C-alpha cells in the first residue's frame, strides 16, 4: 500500500537552502552595473513642501541622480487603491509616489538618490535641503473624524475616507427588549507587522527592448505586475515580477508601495539595475501598519445569557493614504464576521474610515477578523460578568449547534461547516477548566490574581468566489490557478499562481500532488513567485493559498491522473473503464499485476511513440479554480494569566489552542502556523503598540522602542485540533495562517480582566504594560 502523504508531518523541502544560507532573498541579489537607491522621507507628519535644493546631493561622491516629485510626476502615476468598497461614499485621495507640495506622514517620500554604493546614497540624502512649513497633524482616528480636526486632504471633508454600514435582523427591537445591555469602548491599537525581512526591490530595465524585471518582496507578484503597469507604464507583457525568497509578510507585503515603483523609474531613467532596501527604521515609518480601531460596542441579551443583538461604531484609522487593499479590511473582512460563532441574530455596525497623518494601514495577520472577534468575545465576557454566569457557560448557551451543510448569518454569509460546541468542550476538558476555576478561587484567598480568558472564533478565509469579489469592490478576481507538468522520468513540476513566503507550500503542495498522481513528495518541485513562469494568480493572503490554490492544484493533478489512466489503459491493452488508480499505480481493476507507474506513463506521454487515438502528447494539466464560497475555520482558545497586584506585571502562565482547519495536509506545519499566529496575537495584548506623539512623530520607531514578543516571555503553547471538513473544497481543507492571531488577543485580554475583576478594574487599553495595569489597579482600588 502506497503511503498517503496527506496528513504526514514530513520535513519541509524549503529548509535545506534556508538553514545553510544559500536561499536568495531580494537583497541577496547582485547584478552587473547595479546601483543603489535611498529615499529621503519627510520628518514631519504634516507640512507644506517649499523649495528642495538637491545641488549638494548631486555633487556628492558616487551620486548618479537625484529625483524629486517634480521629476517623477510624468513617469509615475499616483498609487492606485484596489479595494473600492461599494456603497460607502469612498473618497480615494491622491497618493503620489513622491510628494510634491504636501507631506502627510512621517515617512512620506520627498526625493530619491541613486548612487554607486548604498553608503554614498545615504550620505547624499543628508545633503538635500527641503523647505518645510509644518502644519497641525492628527493621528487618532476618532479625533480626526471630529469637528475642527486638521484636514489631511483638503478635498476630503472631516477626513472621512468612507462610511460603511452593515445590518441584519431587527437591532432596534433587540435593544428595546433587552434585559441586559453591556457597553464598552475598545482601542484596537495600531500595530507594526515586522516581517523579519525588510522590504526591498531590484529593478533591471532594458532601454532597447523595454523589458523590465522587478525582484520584490511581495506576497502577490501578479497583482504587482498589474499595478506596476498602471503606475510606471511598463505594460504587463514587458514586465516580469519575481518574488524570490520572501522573509515573511503578515499582510505588509500585499500592497504595492511607492518604493518599488520609484526604483523602477530610476532603472528606466538610468539604464542600470537599481536596488533599493528599506532600513528597519524606514520599515517602521513607511511599511503599512495594522489594526488602529476605536470601537464602541453594545451587546443586548437576556438575563439567562442569550445574546440578542450587537450594535457598534468603529473609527478605523487608514493613515495618510489608502493602501492597496485597505478599505476592505475594516469593512468586508470585519463587519460581516460580527455574528461570530453564535449566529447573533441582530447586527448593526457603522464603520468610519478616517485619514490621519500616519503611516497607511493595511492587512495585518487576520485583517479585520481579529478586530471583529475581539469585539464579540470581549462583550461575551462582559455579559457573563453582568449576569453572574461563567463565561464558558454563556458561550455554550449561544454557540451554533454543529452543522455540515451551511449556516446563514444575518450579514449575508453562509458558513460552510462547523462544530463549535465540540471545540469548546474539548478545550475545557483538556485544560481542566473546572479545576482551574477552583485554583483561581483558592489563589484569590491568598491575594494572588489568576485569570482565565476564553475566546471562540470563526473566521472567513479562502477569499472567493470572484463574483463576490466584484460585488464587494475588490478590483481583481479571487480564483487560483495551477499547472502540473510531468517530465519523461516521472519527475513533476508544479507551477502555482499564489506566492508563499514562509508558509511551506513547497512541501504541502508536493504532498497533495504526490497522493493525487502517484509519485513521492521529493519528485515534485513547486515553482512560484515568477510572473513569467507561473500562471496568473492572486497571491498569498487571507489564509487562501491552500484553501484556494490547493484546490486548484488538486483539480489539476486529478486531470493529469485521468489522462495517465487513459495512456496506461492503452499500454496495458485494457479498457479505460477497467482501470483504477490504486496504491499509487495505474492498474487494471482486479489485476494489480497489470499496472503502470506514473514514470512509465510519463515517458510514453512525452516521447509519444505509442499514444491512444485522439490523445495529445505530453502529461500536463492546468486549472483555474474559482471557489463556490469562503471557507470558515474555527476554534476555541484559553489563556491563563497571573497579575502581580503590586507591580502590574502580567505573567502568561498557560495557553491552550484548539483550531479546526479541516483535514491537515501536514500537521507539523499547521502547528507551526498556530504557534506563530497565537504569539502575534499575544503580542498585541501584552506588548505591541505603534505610538505617535501629538505632532505625529512615531515614538516607537525602531525595534528598540516597539516591544516584539521574545522567546523568554512566552509559555509553551498547547496545540490541539478538531477536524471538520469543508463541504465544498476538493480536499476539505480550510486554512490556518491567521487563526491563532484572530483568537489569541482577546483570550489574553479576557484573562487579564478576569484576574482583575475582584479589584473592580473593568477596562484597560492594550497593551497590558505593567504601568497601565498598575495604574488601573490603583484607580480601581484608590491605592488600597
Amino acid at each position, binding site marked *: 500500500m502506497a503511503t498517503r502523504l496527506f496528513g504526514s508531518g514530513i520535513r519541509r523541502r524549503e529548509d535545506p537552502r534556508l538553514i545553510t544560507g544559500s536561499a536568495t532573498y531580494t537583497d541577496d541579489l547582485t547584478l552587473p552595473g547595479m546601483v543603489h537607491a535611498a529615499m529621503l522621507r519627510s520628518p514631519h507628519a504634516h507640512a507644506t513642501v517649499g523649495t528642495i535644493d538637491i545641488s549638494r546631493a548631486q555633487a556628492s561622491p558616487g551620486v548618479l541622480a537625484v529625483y524629486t516629485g517634480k521629476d517623477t510626476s510624468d513617469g509615475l502615476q499616483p498609487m492606485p487603491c484596489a479595494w473600492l468598497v461599494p456603497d460607502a461614499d469612498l473618497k480615494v485621495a491622491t497618493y503620489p509616489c513622491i510628494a510634491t507640495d504636501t507631506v502627510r506622514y512621517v515617512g512620506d517620500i520627498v526625493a530619491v538618490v541613486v548612487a554607486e554604493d548604498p553608503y554614498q546614497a545615504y550620505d547624499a540624502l543628508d545633503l538635500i535641503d527641503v523647505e518645510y512649513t509644518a502644519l497641525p497633524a492628527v493621528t487618532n482616528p476618532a479625533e480626526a473624524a471630529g469637528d475642527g480636526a486638521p484636514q489631511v486632504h483638503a478635498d476630503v471633508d472631516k477626513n472621512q475616507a468612507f462610511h460603511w454600514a452593515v445590518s441584519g435582523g431587527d437591532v432596534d427591537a433587540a435593544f428595546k427588549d433587552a434585559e441586559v445591555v453591556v457597553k464598552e469602548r475598545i482601542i484596537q491599537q495600531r500595530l507594526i507587522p515586522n516581517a*523579519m525581512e525588510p522590504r526591498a526591490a531590484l529593478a533591471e530595465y532594458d532601454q532597447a527592448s523595454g523589458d523590465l524585471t522587478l525582484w520584490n518582496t511581495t506576497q502577490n507578484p501578479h497583482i504587482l505586475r498589474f499595478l506596476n503597469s498602471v503606475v510606471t507604464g511598463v505594460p504587463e507583457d514587458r514586465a516580469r515580477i519575481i518574488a524570490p525568497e520572501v522573509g515573511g509578510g503578515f499582510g505588509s507585503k500585499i500592497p504595492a508601495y511607492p518604493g518599488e515603483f520609484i526604483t523602477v523609474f530610476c532603472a528606466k531613467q538610468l539604464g542600470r539595475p537599481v536596488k533599493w532596501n528599506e532600513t528597519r*527604521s524606514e520599515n517602521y515609518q513607511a511599511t503599512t501598519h495594522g489594526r488602529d480601531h476605536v470601537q464602541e460596542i453594545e451587546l443586548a441579551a437576556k438575563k439567562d445569557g442569550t445574546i440578542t443583538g450587537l450594535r457598534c461604531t468603529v473609527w478605523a484609522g487608514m493613515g495618510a493614504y489608502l493602501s492597496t487593499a485597505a478599505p476592505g479590511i475594516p469593512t468586508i473582512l470585519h463587519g460581516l464576521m460580527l455574528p461570530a460563532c453564535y449566529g447573533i441574530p441582530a447586527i448593526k455596525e457603522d464603520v468610519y474610515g478616517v485619514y490621519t497623518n500616519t503611516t497607511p494601514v493595511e492587512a495585518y495577520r487576520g485583517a479585520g477578523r481579529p478586530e471583529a472577534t475581539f469585539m464579540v468575545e470581549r462583550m461575551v465576557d462582559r455579559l457573563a460578568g453582568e449576569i453572574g454566569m461563567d463565561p464558558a457557560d454563556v458561550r455554550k448557551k449561544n454557540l451554533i449547534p454543529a452543522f455540515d451543510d451551511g449556516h446563514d448569518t444575518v450579514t449575508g454569509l453562509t458558513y460552510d461547516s462547523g462544530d463549535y460546541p465540540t471545540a469548546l468542550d474539548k478545550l475545557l476538558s483538556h485544560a481542566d477548566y473546572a479545576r482551574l476555576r477552583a485554583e483561581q478561587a483558592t489563589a484569590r484567598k491568598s491575594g494572588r490574581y489568576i485569570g482565565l480568558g476564553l475566546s471562540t472564533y470563526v473566521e472567513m478565509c479562502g477569499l472567493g468566489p470572484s463574483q463576490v469579489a466584484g460585488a464587494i469592490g475588490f478590483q481583481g478576481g479571487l480564483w487560483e490557478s495551477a499547472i502540473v507538468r510531468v517530465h519523461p522520468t516521472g519527475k513533476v513540476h508544479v507551477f502555482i499562481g499564489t506566492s508563499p513566503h514562509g508558509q511551506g507550500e513547497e512541501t504541502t503542495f508536493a504532498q497533495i500532488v504526490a497522493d493525487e498522481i502517484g509519485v513521492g513528495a521529493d519528485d515534485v518541485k513547486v515553482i512560484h513567485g515568477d510572473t513569467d513562469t507561473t500562471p496568473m494568480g492572486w497571491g498569498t493572503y487571507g489564509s487562501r493559498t491552500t484553501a484556494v490554490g490547493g484546490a486548484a492544484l488538486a483539480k489539476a493533478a486529478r486531470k493529469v491522473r485521468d489522462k495517465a489512466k487513459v495512456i496506461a489503459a492503452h499500454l496495458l491493452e485494457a479498457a479505460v473503464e477497467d482501470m483504477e488508480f490504486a496504491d499509487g499505480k495505474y492498474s487494471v481493476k482486479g489485476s494489480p499485476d497489470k499496472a503502470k507507474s506514473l514514470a512509465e506513463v510519463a515517458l510514453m506521454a512525452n516521447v509519444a511513440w505509442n499514444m491512444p487515438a485522439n490523445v495529445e502528447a505530453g502529461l500536463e494539466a492546468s486549472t483555474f479554480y474559482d471557489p463556490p464560497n469562503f471557507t470558515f475555520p474555527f476554534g476555541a482558545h484559553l489563556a491563563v494569566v497571573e497579575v502581580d497586584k503590586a507591580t502590574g506585571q502580567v505573567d502568561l502562565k498557560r495557553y491552550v489552542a484548539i483550531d479546526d482547519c479541516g483535514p491537515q495536509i501536514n500537521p507539523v506545519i499547521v502547528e507551526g502556523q498556530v504557534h506563530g499566529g497565537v504569539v502575534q496575537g499575544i503580542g498585541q495584548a501584552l506588548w505591541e503598540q505603534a505610538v505617535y506623539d501629538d505632532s505625529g512623530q512615531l515614538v516607537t520607531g525602531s*525595534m528598540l522602542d516597539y516591544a516584539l514578543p521574545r522567546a523568554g516571555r512566552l509559555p509553551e503553547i498547547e496545540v490541539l485540533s478538531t477536524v471538520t471538513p469543508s463541504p465544498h473544497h476538493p480536499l476539505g481543507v480550510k486554512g490556518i495562517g491567521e487563526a491563532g492571531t484572530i483568537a489569541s488577543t482577546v483570550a489574553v485580554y479576557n484573562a487579564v480582566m478576569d484576574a482583575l475583576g475582584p479589584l473592580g478594574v473593568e477596562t484597560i487599553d492594550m497593551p497590558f504594560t505593567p504601568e497601565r495595569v498598575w495604574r488601573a489597579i490603583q484607580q480601581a482600588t484608590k491605592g488600597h
Partner: protein
Amino acid sequence: MKVPVNITVNGRSYQRDVEPRQLLVHFIRDLGGLTGTKVGCDTSQCGSCTVLLDGVAVKSCSCLAVQADGAAVTTIEGLAEQGTLHPLQEAFWDKHGLQCGFCTPGMILASHELLRHNPDPSDADIRHGLEGNLCRCTGYQNIVRAVRHAADALAEK
C-alpha cells in the same frame, strides 16, 4: 580613506581595503556569494546578522570590519562541514524551527553560542539565551525544541 584588512571568513582569507565605517555584516555580504548573514534591523535588536567571530557569537551589524581585522569569522555558510549539516541545522529542519527563514542563520549561530556555554540547557535556559534574536513566524516554540534536540544530538557525539 580606505583601510586594509585581512579577515578570514569560513576558512578563506580575504584582503580588502574598506572604509573605516563599513560594518562587518556588509563586508561579509559584499564578498560575493556569502549572503546568508542577514540585515533585519538597524538597532542591533533582531540578531539576524549573528556570526561567530573567533568562535564567539556577535551581531555583525554592531561590529566594524576594521575591528575584525585579523580575526576568523564563521557564517551560516561555514557551519556545515564537508557537506554534512551541523546538528543545529539538522535540528532546525527536523523540528520545523523555521518558516520564512530570514532569522534562521542568526538564530542558529546564536544557538551555537548558547550551547557552547551550556551544553545541556533547559527550555527556560534556551528561551533566555535567545532573547537577543527575534523571529516573527514561529512563536519560538519549535526553535526551543530544535535547540534542545541539537543539544541531545551533540551530547551523543
